[in-house]
């Protein structure tokens, strides 16, 4: 078949043009992709618009705010850190296209914080992240499969895995809700399945189990979830899904006067976002949730205090919430990774630095980091928290009780780990 019309001006043309200019001119003095004498270019894909974007769409700007702060204070060995955000609308196919743009057109040094399990699975496979040796740091997903060093040798997690989270919730249920009728609503994909497998292994039996397909969350579908939970008499309901599903679930339940003890998984529990999505404070009051970080309102925490200051100056007008905190923390860890890669960073050096030094990085999260030459697992634990009448999050029982575990059959233990201190002025000086 011969087609005579064609689309003009695709990015591919720009790509080959850009590549062509590389061939046509002499190589720059510093020849690692995405690194010049003045700049280190990084990229992230995440939903900036659409139904899945609430909350997530703050992460990139938060990262950029912190990078600007670092840049204004000398950068990383004199280089400015630049982050290019690409909107994938939470569509895996679009994630592939946008990551291809980052890699081929924008020529980023590394990916940082790519978001979504299905999204990153498709990107890793189709873009050839490992084959190209592209560092992919601090994935914004807790799918335990990404912890496979063999399959994902250049990728590094940051969140505790969903399996870890489920094991910790299972332990919490045993300790605090024994004998109650249990219900669960979970996303019926690798996210929820990761958690369900861990619940099962931990011996947690749910009296009511409701699965929903990603993308179907709405008030109408939430109605059916609530009906099933209420009909089954669930007294404690675990929710293992995204915020855009938490909101209709809680709103519909409140409307139906159904008020179980909610245990909201970490992914869908940001109070500020839930309130923005119309969930009344009264409904959130008392909800329990696993948390890795301190509350974004806890100004007694040195990390939170520093990040709030950065946010006020470099991300003005953006409410400081869990997503902003997470974004800034990823940026903080990224800067440590870049510094650890040395003054002449290469992709290989960055990966090596992550493996050999990454576990000692300063991070706002309370739990240890699991990076090593044989592990790309990030944080490894949670504490349980409870939301108060102001929508704030406080440690359950009044004090952080940190549980740590792994994604496999290891036990859940109470940890005495002390996280590293925030670098002075929030500016890493590691090497």
């Amino acid at each position, binding site marked *: 078949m011969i087609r005579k019309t064609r689309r003009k001006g695709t990015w591919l043309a720009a790509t*080959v043009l850009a590549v062509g200019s590389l061939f046509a001119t002499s190589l720059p003095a510093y020849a690692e992709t995405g690194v010049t004498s003045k700049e280190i270019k990084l990229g992230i894909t995440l939903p900036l618009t659409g139904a899945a974007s609430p909350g997530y769409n703050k992460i990139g700007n938060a990262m950029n705010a912190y990078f600007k702060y670092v840049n204004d204070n000398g950068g990383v060995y004199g280089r400015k850190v630049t982050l290019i955000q690409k909107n994938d609308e939470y*569509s895996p196919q*679009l994630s592939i*296209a946008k990551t291809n743009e980052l890699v081929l057109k924008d020529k980023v040094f590394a990916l940082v914080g790519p978001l979504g399990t*299905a999204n990153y699975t498709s990107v890793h496979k189709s873009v*050839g992240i490992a084959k190209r040796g592209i560092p992919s740091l601090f994935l914004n997903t807790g799918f335990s499969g990404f912890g496979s060093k063999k399959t994902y040798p250049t990728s590094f997690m940051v969140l505790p895995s969903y399996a870890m989270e489920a094991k910790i919730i299972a332990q919490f249920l045993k300790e605090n809700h024994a004998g109650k009728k249990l219900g669960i609503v979970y996303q019926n994909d690798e996210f929820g399945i990761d958690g369900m497998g861990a619940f099962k292994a931990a011996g947690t039996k749910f009296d009511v189990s409701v699965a929903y*397909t990603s*993308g*179907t969350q709405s008030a109408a579908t939430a109605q059916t979830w609530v009906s099933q939970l209420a009909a089954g008499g669930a007294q404690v309901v675990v929710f293992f899904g995204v915020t855009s599903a938490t909101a209709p679930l809680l709103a519909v339940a409140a409307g139906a006067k159904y008020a179980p003890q909610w245990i909201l998984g970490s992914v869908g529990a940001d109070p500020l976002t839930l309130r923005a999505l119309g969930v009344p404070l009264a409904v959130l009051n008392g909800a329990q949730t696993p948390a890795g970080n301190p509350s974004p309102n806890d100004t007694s925490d040195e990390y939170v205090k520093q990040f709030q200051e950065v946010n006020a100056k470099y991300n003005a007008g953006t409410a400081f919430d869990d997503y902003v905190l997470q974004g800034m923390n990823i940026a903080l860890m990224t800067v440590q990774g870049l510094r650890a890669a040395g003054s002449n960073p290469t992709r290989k050096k960055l990966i090596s630095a992550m493996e050999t030094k990454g576990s000692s990085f300063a991070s706002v999260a309370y739990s240890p980091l699991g990076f090593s030459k044989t592990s790309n697992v990030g944080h490894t634990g949670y504490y349980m928290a409870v939301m108060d009448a102001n929508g704030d999050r406080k440690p359950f029982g009044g004090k952080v009780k940190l549980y740590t575990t792994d994604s496999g059959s290891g036990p859940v233990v109470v940890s005495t780990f002390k996280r590293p201190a925030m670098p002075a002025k929030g500016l890493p000086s590691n090497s």
Partner: protein
Amino acid sequence: MRNFKFKRSLTLIAATSLLSITIVSIPTVAQAAPACTTANYVTTCLGATTDTAPYMLITPANFNGTVYLWSHGYRPNVDVPAGIPGYGGYKVTNTPEPAPGGNPQVIGALLAKGYAVMGSGFARQGWNANSAVKTNVELIGIYKKQYPKTTKVISWGNSLGGFQSQYLAEKHPELISSAGALCLSSDVTAISDTAADALWLIKTFFDPTIKGGNYSAGAAGYAEAMGDLVKVFTVIGHFQAAIAANPTAPAWPATSKVPDALKAVPSRSALVLTALLTGVPMQSAHFDSTSAPAGIPAASALSFQLAINPALAALENVANAAALATFQIYDLELQTGGVWYDNTATDWAARVADERFIWASALSGESATNALLGYLAAVPKAKANPDARAKVAGLGTHTGISKVPTVLYTGLADPILGASQQQSIIDKHDAYLAQQWPANRDAAVKKRVVNNLLPLWGIPAAKYTKFTAAGSPDTTVAATPGTNHCNFTVKQYVAIAELLAYAADNGKHLSGGPLLTKIRKAGNMTYDRGYVAPKMKN
């Protein structure tokens, strides 16, 4: 799942025809020497090789000594009754094709530079890899005899013709100086199995009266095969109407005999699973698996992006694969003497170990996916006659070891898996190089092992689905570059021809800036050494 209403009926698919459209006249029957006529400084010769395959030679008066040998793509080896989408009214033809589709612009561009072009119509249609290679070898000799000034032969072809060209590059480097294999078919077993998988899955999920092979002898078998083709398009037509009526939960075809419990799963998810199990791309001519109509609520848009658009992409691409399967199964049964398709050892679940997560929404979640896969695991499998199956492998495959500079080019979203097959050639070639480098070192061979492959890719845009003002997908627009089978422009064909000429003249590929400039000007042509296309599923 959100409920969508298309205000106007959804019109999709005209299955992409795999047929090569020719514009040249039918030549004379077999003869010892070609009959030539000259007009406007161009000599056109018609003749036939010893196997009775008609050929055409077109040579300009200022012939520069280099001739392009074109091999056309797959043509069914049976007439197709009128009314069948994409193929209806087709009559078996061996009309020679001296350039892509006989396109006068491509021919004109080459003649203007002093190149000659030639091509055969081949003696046999259908899967003709082995016989067509022999025809081409003979045709090269005929041309050189007719034009002793000939110094170089450049072989190129698309689809099954890409097979011929790659084969010549591997087995007859003494006859050609460079080769172009476009949207090629490579391993006959892999591509035939893939197509047959698609047909078997359509039969299993949607219409068990599809025979799907073991066709009777003679006219009865032909009628059975064409009957299957009609049934395939009936299923496809059902989905067009059902998705238009209720995109969220389109009805299962009335012909489906899956258990009622399984019908609780949206039928579109079975369609998506069919695509994923066969490995056909999830981007099609009109559906990008990313877009949603403008102006609908955000939650609805996300559902459309994640679930509905992929189902429509699957529908377009599966239609192509299943139609090819009908022809291929029938043809290969004729050639091998029995049932050759076998899926007794197929692990369907393993085939979607990753994709089931990536396309979780389109598959309606884990439970639905497990239910569909469970059904496939439970139903009787297709079992081959071992002798027939063994014969299929003998009908043609590649080593991947090109011994002359070879350009590969395909769209990533080729529904006949051009990208996966191109990747298989690259993988085989890479394996050869990996083995050859240390072997040469150990043998103290100082000559550098040459990488003869120049793989180029046509990547579809991230978003290209068009919607009407009423919000319905618009399938009247041209297929997007990078999608459909062998969906190339004249510019792209000419660019490939120029790359092949350079390689023939220099014994190596154009590289660096000049290469990138050339492919940029051709449009939608990417050179990316780091790219790895999905592998074949079988």
